[in-house]
């Protein structure tokens, strides 16, 4: 038996080579799922960020910054229809070309095991956010059947947390029965479906990427109106 079984990187499949000092730095309990070159390509979000959406300020032009908010969040918060619903989003990594590819493989190609790569980082963050109800952003039934799993649920499960699947997507057919005006006005994408009381609860929404923020803000509004005390969100990428 090989005393150091060779692990293959879950992302690039190369053999994970121990480098000098590697065994000393990482204790045995940290599982090595990805190789160092791949880990280096994951860019952590660091430094000063937008108070709400976690966008790093050093990546945007100063004129798109409004105090401690980015321009987008400022616009959302200006709108009485939307202000105050999303307390804070936390994203772990920048959505760079590398991560784009990894996430695409994870959710579109259905490479479930990649959830484990992110779970290592998710676990730490979720511990900090506890206690809270952890709510994955849902997929439509058709999508779920196509992909075989919901990526947000996978992230939670692999991080060792229990997802509370209290949101469902409103079927687009049902939506299309409404009048056009109704649809635009309501813009409802989700509905809450739960026995548990949300009154006074802290909720953390889970998704893979935060892009425009519209998804989590829709969910946040709904949950807040259903009684939740505060809504945060956690995503892999931003």
């Amino acid at each position, binding site marked *: 038996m090989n005393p150091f079984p060779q692990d293959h990187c879950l992302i690039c499949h190369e053999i994970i080579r121990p480098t000098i000092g590697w065994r000393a730095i990482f204790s045995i309990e940290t599982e090595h799922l990805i190789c160092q070159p791949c880990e280096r390509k994951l860019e952590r979000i660091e430094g000063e960020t937008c108070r709400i959406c976690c966008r790093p300020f050093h990546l945007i032009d100063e004129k798109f910054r409004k105090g401690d908010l980015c321009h987008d969040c400022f616009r959302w918060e200006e709108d009485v229809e939307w202000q105050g619903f999303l307390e804070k989003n936390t994203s772990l990594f920048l959505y760079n070309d590398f991560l784009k590819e990894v996430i695409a493989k994870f959710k579109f190609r259905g490479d*479930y095991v990649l959830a484990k790569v992110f779970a290592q980082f998710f676990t730490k963050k979720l511990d900090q956010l506890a206690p809270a109800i952890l709510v994955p952003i849902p997929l439509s039934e058709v999508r779920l059947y196509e992909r075989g*799993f919901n990526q947000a649920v996978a992230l939670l499960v692999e991080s060792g947390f229990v997802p509370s699947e209290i949101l469902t997507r409103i079927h687009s057919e049902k939506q299309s029965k409404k009048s056009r005006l109704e649809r635009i006005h309501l813009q409802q994408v989700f509905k809450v479906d739960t026995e548990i009381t949300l009154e006074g609860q802290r909720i953390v929404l889970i998704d893979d990427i935060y892009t425009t923020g519209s998804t989590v803000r829709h969910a946040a509004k709904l949950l807040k109106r259903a009684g939740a005390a505060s809504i945060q969100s956690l995503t892999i990428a931003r």
Partner: protein
Amino acid sequence: MRFIIKDEILIPSNTLDDSLPISQIPAIPQPPIQPNYLYNRELQQLLTGKQLLLDDIPFPLNEIQSHYENGYITYRKGINQSGKKPICARCGNKNLQWFETYPCSCCGETCLYCRKCLMMGRISGCTPLIGWNGPVPDTILPAKISQWKGTLSKGQMEASNRVVDAIRENRELLVWAVCGAGKTEVLFAGIEAALAAKKRICIATPRTDVVLELTPRLKAAFPEITVASLYGGSEDRHLFAPLTIATTHQLLRFYHAFDTVILDEVDAFPFTVEESLQHAALQARKPSSAMIYLTATPNEKWQRECRTGKRPFTTIPARFHRHPLPVPEFVWCGNWQKQLQKDKLPANLLSWIKERILANKQALVFFPHIPLMEKSLPILRLIAPTIEAVHAEDPERKEKVQKVRAEEIPLLLTTTILERGVTFPNIDVAVIGAEDSIFTESALVQIAGRAGRSKDHPDGVVTFFHYGKTDEMLKARRQIMAMNREGIKRGLLD
């Protein structure tokens, strides 16, 4: 998907208690063909000789199921069990490292899936592979199949005849043709014979570049024949064609499809990859079919099989221009990596490069690893600032190759990525660190094969700078010299 078996027929069902994911059904019944059933011709075109996933088929499940119930479609398990071990039915993967599980929303169980062929659509324990069991589409042949007007060299002609025989008689044949022999032309007569006999034929190669290069040449030679050109993202995916040119990877979508498979550059990948390519080729050919292997550098096992008469083969030992292959010279250059740490390169290598720059002779210099190459680049740019370096992940790879063609780059440093495929008419070639294990016999023969390619410049210098001769270097030189000797013996050289 989950199924139940009712009256010897598989029926999709996700609700019934006794339903099972397809891989857990012991034996999948195949209903007999109902001759009066009006089958869908588009489905026939799409599925003949294929193994597709439901997602690949733009028809509703109930239509597919109805074809199955009438005997026209087959369902196979995506993942088979051999003893306790899983095998991916599509890519042949049986390495547990490439299998993972997930809680599956399709079948409601913990499903095993294959990561190896994931990019072609995920195969899990509940995935059926869908194929065709009905009559094959009819192809109408033009009066004149081949419009190719070229002529073959004596060496090509001999090989071409052997290929025709192998295709007619559904046999296997290895065509061992030196770099620059003109192997594509050797196939034309065989392809014509196959098409004339209404046989379905496929040329498979590991590299997309080659598919793109071969497609117009074959379309020009067989202008009235439908040609499907298949690579990742190509548009011919659903085209039924008597002649298919595909990357070996794309073969994974085929099942018992071809009467002839021509496998190009069988040696281009390391053994583990080769194994799965072999699997793909085996699945794609019909049980009774011809298999033509093309290579300039068969591996040791194959060379031995040729020598001992275990593998039928034919050689083209000479280039079409009837000049011998340049034989590599070995030049000892000491511990060059140590020198490089001090930002120096061996004097004999430097003067080799200077000579070429002064004489305006373009050259390729091969390095074993990227960091060594990148460390050498600034040193060599002191000789000529226009020297460039290229490697597999270089985004400007194509542009740089183009610039060498346009003679804007006098000397290009490269890793083994340029060892095959790319040809320049008039270059010299050097390898620095030929002792490195990355330079196998086959890699070195390919590298040497870059020189002296054109009729106008049939000579070229090939120099292996080394810090200790290796067996691989010796074997490579021996192979090249043996080919030259055979060329003389068979009267193929001037």
